[in-house]
């Protein structure tokens, strides 16, 4: 072949484009092939079980049509699998509606256990972003054996809840009932605690994440109408659309238990102010949490801003006689009450 810089460039970009189409994240040919190869009956069956379980919890009845619409499998494969599952007494057909048998229920709970344990693991022991937990757990839940789940659970200190606030079923298939009501249905001036943030659908979950709303934070609803819901939490004000607020579950306090109104986030502390640490938010997890505790960010410690940064972030805080720099997203997960110096 005769050399010519233009042909060389063109063939180079040709190869680049080819590689792009093969290895492009998720949609690349390589990944599609891998996925198609791994679409075994086990995965289809488990996805059906999980879907039925979730809908039974919210009292929806499910027909074959619903399944085809909700799950991404072809109709023939689906029907074949449903038949097989009925033979194995995992489901029964009741007037066009599929219902889980006790055996099917138990199986579904184990998949949910695997999913939630894996999410907990990702949140505590790895650096993956919140947005990725769900999707990765969707794949991993089909791979974990009962033994591996128990090991995982031990490693994580037998957690009760996943990082979204969902209860994790035990190995015996026990599961705590979720309490609380959606944020969108709270009356004004209600005080409560966020106990669950739903991670599906993706679009709404990303909006909640962008707002920096923290799980297990105490909130007070300020305004609630068909346009928007305004509430205060940890010294900040949040405004959400009702459809977004519907994906946040709140446990309402019966009485005015504790007045947590003067709690704020460390990120809101100004240069001349002093504060006392109230605790670390539950959103501060794993290695990060332990590191902060090691450095002395514990209940009762007095803290002040030591240095501002020429670029704004991070700031240095003075705690126990040491200057320690923290990034803004870390400081927002440390809860404080400001001290008024009027002596």
């Amino acid at each position: 072949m005769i050399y010519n810089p233009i042909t060389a460039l063109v063939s180079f970009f040709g190869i680049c484009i080819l590689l792009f189409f093969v290895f492009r994240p998720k949609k690349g040919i390589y990944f599609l092939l891998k996925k198609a190869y791994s679409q075994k009956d086990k995965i289809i069956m488990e996805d059906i079980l999980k879907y039925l379980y979730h809908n039974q919890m919210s009292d929806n009845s499910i027909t074959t049509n619903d399944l085809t619409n909700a799950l991404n499998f072809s109709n023939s494969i689906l029907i074949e699998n449903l038949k097989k599952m009925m033979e194995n007494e995992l489901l029964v057909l009741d007037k066009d509606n599929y219902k889980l048998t006790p055996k099917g229920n138990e199986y579904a709970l184990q998949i949910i256990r695997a999913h939630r344990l894996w999410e907990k693991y990702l949140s505590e022991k790895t650096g993956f972003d919140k947005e990725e937990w769900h999707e990765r757990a969707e794949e991993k839940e089909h791979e974990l054996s009962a033994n591996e789940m128990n090991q995982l659970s031990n490693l994580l200190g037998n957690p009760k809840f996943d990082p979204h606030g969902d209860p994790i079923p035990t190995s015996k298939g026990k599961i705590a009932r979720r309490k609380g009501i959606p944020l969108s249905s709270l009356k004004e001036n209600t005080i409560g605690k966020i106990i669950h943030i739903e991670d599906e659908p993706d679009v709404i979950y990303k909006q909640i994440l962008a707002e920096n709303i923290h799980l297990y934070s105490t909130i007070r609803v300020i305004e609630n109408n068909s346009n928007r819901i305004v509430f205060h939490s940890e010294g900040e004000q949040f405004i959400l659309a009702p459809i977004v607020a519907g994906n946040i579950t709140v446990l309402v306090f019966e009485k005015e238990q504790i007045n947590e109104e003067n709690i704020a986030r460390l990120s809101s502390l100004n240069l001349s102010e002093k504060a006392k640490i109230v605790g670390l938010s539950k959103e501060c997890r794993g290695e990060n949490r332990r590191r902060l505790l090691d450095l002395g960010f514990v209940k009762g410690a007095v803290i002040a801003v030591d240095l501002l940064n020429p670029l704004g972030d991070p700031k240095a805080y003075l705690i126990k006689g040491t200057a320690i720099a923290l990034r803004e997203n870390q400081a927002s997960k440390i809860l404080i009450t400001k001290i008024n110096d009027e002596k």
Partner: protein
Amino acid sequence: MNKKNIENIIALSEEMRWQIGDDFHDNLAESIYADASKIVEDVVTKDYQKSKFRLDAKIDKIVTSRIWGFPIMLFILGMILWLTIIGANYPSSMLATLLLDNIHPVLKMVGANIGFPWWLNGFLFDGVYLSVAWVIAVMLPPMAIFFPLFTLLEDFGYLPRVAFNMDSLLKKSGAHGKQALTMSMGFGCNAAGVVATRIIDSPRERLIAIITNNFSLCNGRWPTQILLATIFIGAVVPESYSSFASLSAVIGIAVLGIFFMFFFSWALSQTVLKGEVSTFNLELPPYRPPLFWKTIYTSLIDRTLIVLWRAIVFAAPAGAVIWLISNVYIGNESIASWTVHSLDGFGFLLGLNGVILLAYIVAIPANEIVIPTILMLTVMVTGIQGGEGNGVMFELSSVTATAEILKAGGWSLLTAVNVMLFSLLHNPCSTTIYTIYKETNSVKWTLVASILPVIAGFIITFLVAQIWRILI
């Protein structure tokens, strides 16, 4: 105990676990800390509140201020680099005169006198000795200047402030502020830069810092850049601007390296390193006057000598290989010239040539011997006058003479530019590769760190060569 009782107890314990809840571990930890701090408050008296913080606070205000923070930082780094490059010239040339010009001939003579056959004499003294001597002469002086200066700043307490200032820039590419320090350390020596990443305690950010450290132009590569820029870049502009042009070209390459560091930090943190745990914290210790002699001593022992020793260990076999490939013949061609001819095609595609590629392959142990190897191979392949003989590396004292040999070897401005780029973007030297393996304990990350820059180098030089040939 009968079986039913045991089952009851287990059931009860599971029930209680639910009641205690997830906060249990945290509460325990917090109360221990709270107790400890209460005891400290009762027992320890402190009076640093008054005196100590005043001066520290003043220095901190200046070095982290909006106006002065960055200029001070750039000035100090520039000073250190300047002192290193300029200051190392004299001891380097003295060492070179001693080891290369005086001792080398003596050793060869002694060898001949005690009856070594020519091949053993050549192998030992032209091969092994020469490359070791070269590495020592070029590498030791800059490192002996750079590292003590750097360690003094570290001891004084200034470096954590640099990390503090730089953090939000580095955060954007998924890295830790302290990477600014390991990167600067890499300007001295990549292997030392990799060791320095121990200050980063977050696994993901540490790996990023290790893998991208090679994009800092190290001491072994500065002389190559300066030489080529002087010969080729300085020549295309009017004479009065030539030193300015060549200086800007060298700085441009170093800045390009910083750009690649940012780019690959970002790319790595988005892809292969996504799952590694990432944390951040940065302590700003109080300033203190550095313990001058102790610092000098430990930095010489810990950093300079250890790195130098590793370099020597790797340079010796490299010298042997260079001598062997130029003196072992297959048919009537030496291995070296045979390899050069077979690499020529690929080299041309990248705007380089076979000699350069072979030099970079045999000079993996030390960047310092790339130029001597290129000169030796060029003389050998083209058959022009000059040089010291097959397999004997040499360098010329005059820049013009070096330029003549390179031009006789077919070098153009494009070749020079691409060698400068390739010198920035190629695999780390074997000392660094070994150090990366020691630090990460993982073959996978060592491979990534070694191969990633070469691929980048191939792509960049290829693109530059094609576009150059289309436009000019």
